[in-house]
């Protein structure tokens, strides 16, 4: 939201406009300020985008007379003073993203979309530049030229971790392996302030092992976004054994700021989603191995019978069968449950280099889209 006032006649607008409707005068942004609560209602019915109830909506008035509706997660009372931010984008963070893979790209796109600044650190400047071009390409589909120029100007690329020093939040999204992640986390910690929230986007690695070498593991936790992070609403906010209360609260707050729904989880193997998902994928493969039905029919049955948007075999192809096997092996090792032991057909496909969509074949064959003119 943009609140503007006319310098000439004083008319106020809650929209970004070129000039005053009434007198044609120039408009200037009004300053964000603390505001007084005039009235408040506790809302106990959920609606799309506001599923968690209760929450509170306050009608507030700022010192300059401007008013706003402000959602709060805690009760506020008439007469209270609260921060009136018109929209989430008015709280701008500098977010550090480490890594240049698919998740790092998605996270960068999400941060820029929400108005934040991104310090993007990777090992190769060339790869970062290519990744930035892909992000710009995606943003260009939803932004006009000015917005895109502004968004891209909010990215700074660096090979040196030192560039992260000014970040409020740093998200590590490098390769899903313990040692590289540990090394990166230690190097991040060496340059940021002790208060900076450091988060890992790991989908399964144990948080206490990741933070073993950190001096302040209490400000470290997991922000497990789902792919693509611009569209998937869930963030598992993972609390490790040493993550403190404040960090846990900050992770939830940040996820909400991004328009996501945080679900706090303990740092058990696979958290919630992968722990529940992997046996389902594995069982779908076994059903296929047992000749119960062809892949298409297994997926169709699960889609319609369980109301999933996508069948398990198609989903495995989307995730990448190598990634699926890796997660299953890890969970199998840590939970010791055979339900997580990758089925032979999964291993076979991976051995054949059929990794799913990314290689053009997995449980299904994928025809590359024709190049459009």
């Amino acid at each position: 939201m943009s609140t503007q006032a006319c310098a000439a006649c004083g008319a106020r607008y809650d929209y970004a406009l070129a000039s005053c409707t009434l007198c044609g005068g120039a408009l200037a942004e009004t300053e964000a300020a603390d505001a007084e609560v005039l009235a408040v209602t506790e809302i106990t019915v959920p609606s799309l985008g506001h599923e968690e109830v209760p929450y509170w909506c306050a009608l507030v008035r700022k010192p300059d007379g401007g008013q706003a509706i402000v959602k709060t997660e805690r009760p506020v009372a008439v007469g209270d003073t609260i921060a009136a931010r018109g929209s989430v984008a008015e709280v701008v963070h500098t977010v550090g993203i480490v890594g240049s893979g698919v998740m790092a790209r998605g996270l960068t796109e999400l941060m820029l979309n929400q108005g934040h600044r991104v310090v993007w650190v990777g090992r190769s400047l060339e790869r970062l530049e290519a990744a930035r071009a892909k992000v710009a390409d995606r943003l260009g589909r939803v932004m006009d030229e000015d917005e895109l120029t502004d968004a891209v100007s909010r990215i700074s690329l660096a090979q040196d971790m030192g560039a992260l020093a000014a970040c409020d939040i740093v998200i590590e999204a490098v390769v899903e392996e313990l040692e590289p992640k540990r090394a990166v986390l230690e190097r991040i910690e060496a340059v940021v302030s002790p208060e900076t929230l450091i988060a890992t986007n790991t989908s399964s690695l144990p948080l206490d092992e990741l933070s073993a070498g950190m001096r302040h593991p209490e400000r470290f936790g997991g922000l497990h976004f789902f792919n693509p992070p611009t569209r998937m609403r869930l963030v598992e906010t993972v609390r490790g054994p040493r993550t403190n209360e404040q960090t846990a609260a900050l992770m939830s707050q940040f996820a909400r700021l991004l328009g996501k729904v945080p679900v706090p989880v303990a740092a058990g193997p696979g958290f919630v989603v992968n722990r529940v998902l992997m046996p389902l994928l594995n069982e779908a493969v076994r059903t296929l191995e047992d000749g119960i039905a062809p892949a298409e029919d297994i997926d169709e049955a699960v889609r319609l019978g369980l109301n999933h948007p996508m069948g398990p075999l198609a989903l495995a192809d989307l995730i990448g069968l190598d990634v699926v096997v890796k997660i299953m092996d890890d969970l199998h090792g840590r939970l010791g449950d055979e339900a997580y032991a990758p089925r032979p057909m999964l291993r076979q496909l991976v051995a054949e280099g059929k990794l799913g969509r990314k290689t053009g074949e997995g449980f299904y064959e994928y025809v590359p889209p024709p190049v459009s003119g």
Partner: protein
Amino acid sequence: MPAFVIGVGKTRFGPSGHDIPYLAQEAMAEALTDAGIGVADLGALIVANFLGGPNEHQLHLNSVVAGLMPGVRLPSWRVEAACASGAAAIHQAVALLGTYDPILVIGVERLSGLPGAVLTRNIGMAGDVVLDQAQGLNFPASYALVAQRHMQRYGTTTRDFELVSLKNHANAQLNPKAHFHLKRVTQADIDAGATVASPLRLFDCCPVSDGAAAAVISATASDGRSVPVLGSAIRSDAISLSQREDHTTFPAAREAAEDAYRKAGISSADVSFAEVHDCFTIAEIVAMEDLGLAEPGYATGMVRDGQTAIGGSVPINPSGGLKAGGHAIGATGVGQVYEAVTQLRGEAGQRQVAGAEIAVTHNVGGVGGTCAVHVLGRPS
């Protein structure tokens, strides 16, 4: 140019298994029969609807309705002004007499069958997407803030809201086309109602209904049952409560009422009864004050004294209102005209307001962003 309602029709408001074309045709057929004309006699068609797009993925409803009259290619279009769509369409018809005559107005809406959270979001589209929706200010919450402000300023109590609810539910029992015609609502039901958005509880909220209503508007009275439209006015205002100074009144409703009264040559003292937009009980109290039926802060006195009941000095919502009569959003403003016409003709049966001379209808879109007021008189 004079204007008359020469025919009206209305389906029952409430959950229905029928689709939009069926509902629209049922109301249309009744209105045309009532007017004693056929579709071929019509000059134009205006269809009022709010959520056909988000709920049913069906826009372009005037053309859907055109399919109900094969081969008759009328001038037609759809009107949308949130919950005021119906009265906005009536106003447009009145204003266009001289270009088209007679004009059929159909309001139609389907709201049942959607998950609650989806419907709550969709209805919230009547509020600003950034200022309201992004902050979780759904529709009940908007009116809850109005209620909070009214309570702070005038000492209005939740008991006043309960009295409005009980009165409208009692009226609906007398109206066979009301959503809650067959449901007896007692104090115990109200006490058991969960909070929706404090201070509003379940029985402070109108239901969401399926239904349609139709009216045929003409510059010429067709018979002794034609009801004159004495005044028709509409005003709009900024969409969010946060963009208004006073949160206990809707200035757009106030100005529309003043304009409609001026056109009709009446004052608020002349009003026999009113059908007002009580989407929430607080809205009925605000409506009475905006229509000048009570001074600001004094509507509750009339509610407490029973003056707004059917036998009272100014009956409000003899149909049961939106609260108990039902709210088939796009049809609501047209349904209010149906009730006004039926009462003024003396054909309202058990819920007849004795000696009704002047009726006022008051239809609101959003939380006062659009308000349309009509004044109708007794047939001569």
